[in-house]
């Protein structure tokens, strides 16, 4: 399979609203998809929007090589995501993809995936990828409220799912780090993959360190290019300032110098 990055017009083949703030875009490539790894992302061009000059990054939520399609899970935040939410079947969407590194294949079967908000996006793809490698992870998903809990069936097909909501309207109540999984004296996981808001990832990283559990996080960042040339998206690591869009977005927490 090709490993080159592409700039390509894909076509919207399905859009579906998960809830008020989240939706799925399924996009079909005009030719064979390149190899895409879990954790990688795309840079989407928002055409015809006066308030979005730069592309917008989104993690790949799922890939279907037979259909040559990929899915994005998007949370509406500002003008760019609003505009994407209004795309219709058949509309073109120009992507640069696939970008960034990926989650690593763990040397253990005791794997926990933790996601919150739109940070759940890459985890479905990751879970399916782990399944292909005979790993069936535990998956902890945090949502604001019951209304936003979605795609649980899809996750359940790939591992054991736990849900926690801020307001307790579904699953346990609290932030992901409040979940009973983390209250055990010894964490039954040898590897954690985590994706979500900064504060959440930092909190999970703290727990992982405490338990000396290996942990990878997928960082958010403001990006101008997404493919390594502008140096706008750096994060301090043990090797100095590294680019989140090339050396990341996935980093082992041991390498990060989070404040």
């Amino acid at each position: 399979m090709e490993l080159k990055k592409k700039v390509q017009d894909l076509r919207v083949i399905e859009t579906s609203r998960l809830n008020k703030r989240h939706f799925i875009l399924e996009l079909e490539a005009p030719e064979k998809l390149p190899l895409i790894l879990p954790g990688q992302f795309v840079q989407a061009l928002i055409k015809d929007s006066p308030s979005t000059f730069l592309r917008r990054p989104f993690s790949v939520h799922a890939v279907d090589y037979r259909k040559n399609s990929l899915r994005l899970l998007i949370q509406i935040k500002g003008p760019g995501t609003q505009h994407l939410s209004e795309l219709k079947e058949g509309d073109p969407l120009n992507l640069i993809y696939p970008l960034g590194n990926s989650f690593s294949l763990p040397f253990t079967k005791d794997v926990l995936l933790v996601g919150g908000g739109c940070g759940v996006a890459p985890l479905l793809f990751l879970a399916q990828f782990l399944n292909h490698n005979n790993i069936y992870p535990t998956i902890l998903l945090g949502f604001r409220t019951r209304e936003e809990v979605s795609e649980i069936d899809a996750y359940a097909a790939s591992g054991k799912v736990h849900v926690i909501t801020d307001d307790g309207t579904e699953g346990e109540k609290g932030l992901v780090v409040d979940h009973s999984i983390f209250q055990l004296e010894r964490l039954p996981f040898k590897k954690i993959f985590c994706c979500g808001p900064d504060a959440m990832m930092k909190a999970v990283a703290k727990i992982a360190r405490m338990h000396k559990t290996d942990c990878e996080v997928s960082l958010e960042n403001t990006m101008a290019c997404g493919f390594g040339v502008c140096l706008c998206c750096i994060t301090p690591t043990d090797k100095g300032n590294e680019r989140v869009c090339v050396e990341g977005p996935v980093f082992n927490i041991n390498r990060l110098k989070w404040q």
Partner: protein
Amino acid sequence: MMKDLSINIAGLHFKNPVTTASGTFGYGDEFLDFIDPGKLGGIFVKAVTGKNREGNAYPRMAETASGMLNSVGLQNKGIDHFCREIYPKIRNFNTNVIVNVSGSTIEEYIEVAEKINDLDDIPAIELNISCPNVKLGGMAFGTVPDMATEVTAEVRKVYKKVLMVKLSPNVTSITDLAKAVVDGGADAITLINTLLGMAIDAEKRRPVLSTITGGLSGPAIKPIALRMVWQVHKAVHIPVIGLGGIMNATDAIEFILAGASAIQVGTANFIDPTVSLKIVDGIDSYMERHKIKLVSDLVGALRTE
């Protein structure tokens, strides 16, 4: 129609007038998936300084209306790393590979220029006396004519190939600065670097950038860039390389008509990494349509009578 898109700048041959701007094209290698740099007139690689620099803290970027602010701050691994690790990888791109030379002191500019002078396959440097994103980082050299003359003259003494100087637009009189670097011995002038700007997050009541202010680029600044290219083209007799907000071939032609012998594509690379080649093609079709055989006939060909 037979057309010739080639351009000569201070004796250096460019196969076409389209090049890429420093800091927006990395060292070219990140673009190999998208385009063949050999099809461009040249590439201007990321700023190189004397020593390793980590640059500024995150956040370094803010989106603005038809533009963006950056405060990267010359992050790079220094000239020795460049000579050892980067140069071997890029020296054989089939185009003019030009290095953007930055520094905080005249000594640093001289050190970098001297070392690059020894690299056979780098035919020119672009002296960046205009970076707004580092304290003591060049912009002072780019805003005071006497200092601009001095740094250019000192580098001229040690650098034997084509010496371009990149000017800052954050000045009262761009022509004074242009004349100053001509006096210092520059072979060509690049303009413009970014305009000093600022973005604020009203909800958080904080600046968006860690450095508070940063450099504005993109289509927002094109009218200012065009004006400066036009003014400098009329004021000096050395070639001008124009940039600032070029997004397509029409923009490029506007700069050429205003007096640019070559143009650089900057921020546009982020939005479409293949855009520089599209601009080459677009200039070609413009010449076809307007029956222009030599692209050099378009340089400064604005009709103002």
